[in-house]
């Protein structure tokens, strides 16, 4: 039987990421059914994952984006020129 320690230390992330085979997944599911501590833990670890997904990106200035796009466009035009020669 899967213990709390095994679930927390070796299975939790793989369970959340759907990386377990069906047997491992069933053992986690069964454990969660009977263990409210681990249910709470899994909810919290899932929250951690979602926090990381939403951590704000450092804003890039409009001017910077425009300048970069222009530079890339210019480079592309030059390449196209070379190709057609």
């Amino acid at each position, binding site marked *: 039987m899967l*213990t*709390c*320690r*095994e679930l*927390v*230390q*070796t299975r*939790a*992330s*793989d369970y959340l*990421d759907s*990386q377990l085979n069906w047997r491992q997944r069933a053992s986690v599911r069964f454990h969660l059914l009977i263990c409210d*501590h*681990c249910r*709470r*833990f899994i909810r*919290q*670890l899932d*929250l*951690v*994952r*979602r*926090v*990381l*997904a*939403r*951590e*704000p*990106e*450092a*804003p*890039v200035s409009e001017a910077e*984006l*425009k300048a*970069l*796009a*222009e530079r*890339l*466009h210019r*480079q*592309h*035009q030059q*390449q*196209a020129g070379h190709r057609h020669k």
Partner: protein
Amino acid sequence: MTHQNPVDDAALLVRLRSGEKAAFEELVRQHHGAMMRAAAAIIGDAQAEEAVQEAWLAAIRHLHDFEGRSSLKTWLFSIVINEARGRLRKTKREVLIDDQDSRNEGLFDPGRFLCDGHWAHEPALWHDQSPEALLSHEDFLHCLGKLLDTLPDIQRSVLTLRDYQGLEVETICNILSVSASNMRVLLHRARAKVYTMVDLYEETGTC
């Protein structure tokens, strides 16, 4: 974060290849922020800018070779990550093994569980129940930033690419040249550290 589907990619590619100026702006707008983030995850903020510029130039150089086997996003990512990793290799010896120091900390602290494998104490309740609630605290953002900075490079890369950028496990393994099992261990170690930080933050309001 933007999720481009292949159909949009194909349309954008046609416009890029024909040299339409607005298409370049669209491309940069969609991907530059995430590419900066990916590069910073690997080599730090200071060097990220240059790596991303190089990556963009390389991408435009090879625009005609792109075959659409992956999404444009994944392709751009593999370029920026290779660029960043190349720089990392030049600046320091890379350590791909996991850090040994923290093996007995946080969720891996032997005191957290009894001999029979049960929790020694129940995990504490958290006041904040949603990402929005946690991220609304200025000091929490500070704590999170600080923690991410202290992660071993490879853990930070895996965590950023998976949880922030949302790349598939297989893609990340290819990008970072680690086995799937290795990557899963690294990812869980990194999440466990964030978990421990959040747990402390919820209890004390500091980190």
